[in-house]
């Protein structure tokens, strides 16, 4: 029961992480000056630096919750998936754990890159790290959903 609650909280925080990094990535890679226009223009016209601290906190909390829930996954869920032959799903989940771990190591660099006032010479850091985090977060979110739903509800 506790694990189920933690997984739900983990998933809700993941939604917030996903929103923050998607906004930031689009604003970093395709910035617009205009405040009005299409939905896409408004989506990417946010100041990207404003998401950095929230992203760091949310990413760390999501990783911590994931690390706690992982214990239950290993004992109760993974054996069932192995028995049912869901080996591709387990491989994809292993990649989620590897990618999110590498992301953890990049958090200090991300924090330095987005620290205000923004350093002009770190523009490359910011763009590169943000897109890496976007990939990690999207991958983790989608694969987390696949694993969560693979055995059905109940």
């Amino acid at each position, binding site marked *: 029961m506790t694990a189920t609650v933690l997984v739900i909280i983990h998933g809700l925080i993941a939604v917030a992480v996903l929103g923050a990094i998607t906004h930031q990535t689009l604003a970093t890679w395709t910035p617009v000056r205009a405040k009005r226009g299409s939905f896409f223009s408004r989506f990417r016209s946010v100041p990207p630096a404003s998401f950095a601290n929230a992203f760091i906190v949310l990413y760390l909390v999501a990783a911590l919750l994931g*690390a706690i829930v*992982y*214990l*239950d996954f*290993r*004992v109760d869920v*993974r*054996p069932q998936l192995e028995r049912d*032959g869901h*080996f*591709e799903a*387990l*491989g994809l989940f*292993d*990649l989620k*754990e*590897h*990618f999110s*771990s*590498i992301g*953890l*190591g*990049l958090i*200090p*660099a991300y*924090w*330095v890159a987005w620290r205000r006032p923004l350093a002009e010479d*770190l523009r*490359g*850091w910011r763009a*590169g*790290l943000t*897109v*890496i985090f976007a990939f990690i977060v999207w991958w983790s979110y989608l694969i987390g959903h696949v694993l969560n739903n693979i055995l059905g509800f109940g």
Partner: protein
Amino acid sequence: MASRKFAFTFGTAFAICYAIAVGRQLALFTVFPSLGLVLPGTVQSRDVADPALGFLAPAMYWYGWIATATLGAFAAGMISLTVPEAWTRRVWQGWLWAIPVAAMAACVKFTLPWFRL
């Protein structure tokens, strides 16, 4: 500038150390969640339980890999603080994203056996 050097080195070294830890099975410790055990180093299930009952004592290395990578990255970060500024200016900034991407690709390679089962 010191925080930049440390963060840059920590991030790249973490990615390298993590990929090595996964590839070479270098976990600082192993967790056996069903037994409530944490043992130093990389320990196989068959070493703590009868091989026939190994499935009852699944081993988790992920926490140990992260600990190994953190330790290595922290050491590299501290060493980087002693490197003169003139040297670090010559380092290509792109390594900060290129090395983690390479480490992620290495992790994909290590995970391929799952897809051949």
